[in-house]
């Protein structure tokens, strides 16, 4: 959400509009840029309306409604592939946790009540209810999916842990297609250090 206050954001949607780019801009409006609320970011009533000045389509959707987000994105995609230009989608949503695990404390800038209100709209709960009522989903199926996801995460973490530790020589080798002489010297220097 905070990113829409950056000048680059306006330049990006303006370029996309000018070139009728097949682009979709998704603005995840979770109400805060760390601690600063959307009302202090902009006087605009919605973020979607920023599309108007760029001359592109803009739509605000309930970001806690899976199907609404799907419908808006599908329409935007069709517009893009048909050469009708870009779309900006603002999804209204919420960040339950802190911005980072490195010291952000949401109790300094928002209330429990606010969080409770958003929890009532939780997209997973709502979509589950919807599917269950249609007879398309059950607890067993859900548990199966959860277990499978846990296994996948575990496997991914294991694979990551098995990767060799990053070395300074790797960083040096990633800097240019062909290493300039000064970096070649530094590469030798760090090779010697790393082999110790």
């Amino acid at each position, binding site marked *: 959400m905070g990113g829409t206050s950056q*000048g680059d954001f306006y330049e990006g949607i303006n370029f996309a509009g000018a070139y009728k780019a097949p682009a979709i801009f998704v603005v995840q409006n979770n109400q805060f840029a760390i*601690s*600063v609320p959307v009302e202090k*970011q902009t006087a605009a009533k919605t973020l979607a309306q920023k599309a108007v000045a760029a001359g592109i389509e803009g739509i605000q959707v309930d970001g806690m409604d899976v199907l609404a987000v799907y419908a808006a994105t599908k329409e935007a995609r069709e517009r893009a592939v048909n050469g009708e230009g870009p779309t900006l989608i603002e999804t209204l949503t919420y960040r339950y946790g802190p911005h980072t695990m490195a010291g952000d404390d949401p109790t300094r800038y928002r209330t429990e009540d606010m969080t409770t209100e958003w929890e009532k709209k939780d997209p997973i709960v709502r979509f589950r209810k919807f599917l269950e009522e249609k007879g398309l989903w059950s607890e067993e199926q859900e548990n199966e999916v959860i277990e499978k996801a846990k296994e996948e995460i575990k496997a991914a973490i294991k694979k990551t842990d098995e990767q060799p*530790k*990053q*070395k*300074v020589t790797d*960083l040096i080798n990633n800097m240019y297609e062909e290493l300039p002489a*000064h970096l070649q010297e530094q590469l030798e220097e760090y090779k010697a250090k790393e082999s110790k």
Partner: protein
Amino acid sequence: MAQMTMIQAITDALRVELKNDENVLVYGEDVGQNGGVFRATEGLQDEFGEDRVFDTPLAESGIAGISIGLATQGFRPVPEIQFFGFVYEAMDAINGQMARLRYRSGNTVSMPVTIRSPFGGGGVHTPELHADSLEGLIAQQPGMKVVIPSGPYDAKGLLIQSIRDNDPVVFLEHMKLYRSFREEVPEDDYTIELGKANVVREGKDVTLVAYGAMVHSALKAAEDLEKDDIDAEVIDLRTVMPVDFETIIKSVEKTNRMVMIQEAQRQAGIASYVVSNVQERAILHLEAPILTVAAPDTVYAFTQAEEVWLPNYNDIIEKVNKVMHF
């Protein structure tokens, strides 16, 4: 006198200047009720109100840009760039505009802006564009001053002086130093002159020049070098633009040897600037080439390689031994 961490000394300096001068304004992302991501502005909005200490939209070019307008209208802005890697967004406002207004106006417009920003690695393991040492980008722009304190006492005195300075200052706070140690810091106001280095350890055999967190690596190296009968002098630049060459030359004339230490990558940058000036002014006093300790010329390393990538104590010892036995 009170024992303070560097972050407390910085908050204290801001409080002193907000009290002293009603034109001082403090603003940036999350600096209001949240007190800043490192709590540098903790409690200041409650004490001085939302007109003096306030949150801005998330836009660094805007934060630096409004500072220019405010400064021309008699305010003394102290904006914060949340992490110095984000300064790229504000480079036109700073180097392209703020730095040039005095010159453009024929020396009739002052630009009393102090941009505070955390930077530096090895303390907080941050993602990309948070810990980079980008002081060289600003130091290369004529019209700008760049101040980098190495501890709580200096941070308070230098920040107050920076705020009172009528030219734009980028004041860089090394994240590793924020809470790593405490120092005696006077509670009233005091200033430390900009552009003056500090001899933090006297010695006769070799001069170690450093700034920011590297001052502490240099001091540790100096202590251990004593065991090998090498008596190192350590100079803390405090201000990397302008540089106090007088203090460095005086030291080199005594020691005849020098090692330049910076956390930033080696290419271009502060170290090259200092070394070129020292050799121009003191070549006949040197018994060995001046060697440089710096990070390798890559993009800032991710956490896994950070400790190896950052210049450290061992690199300093190695370079000192080289200049001693040249």
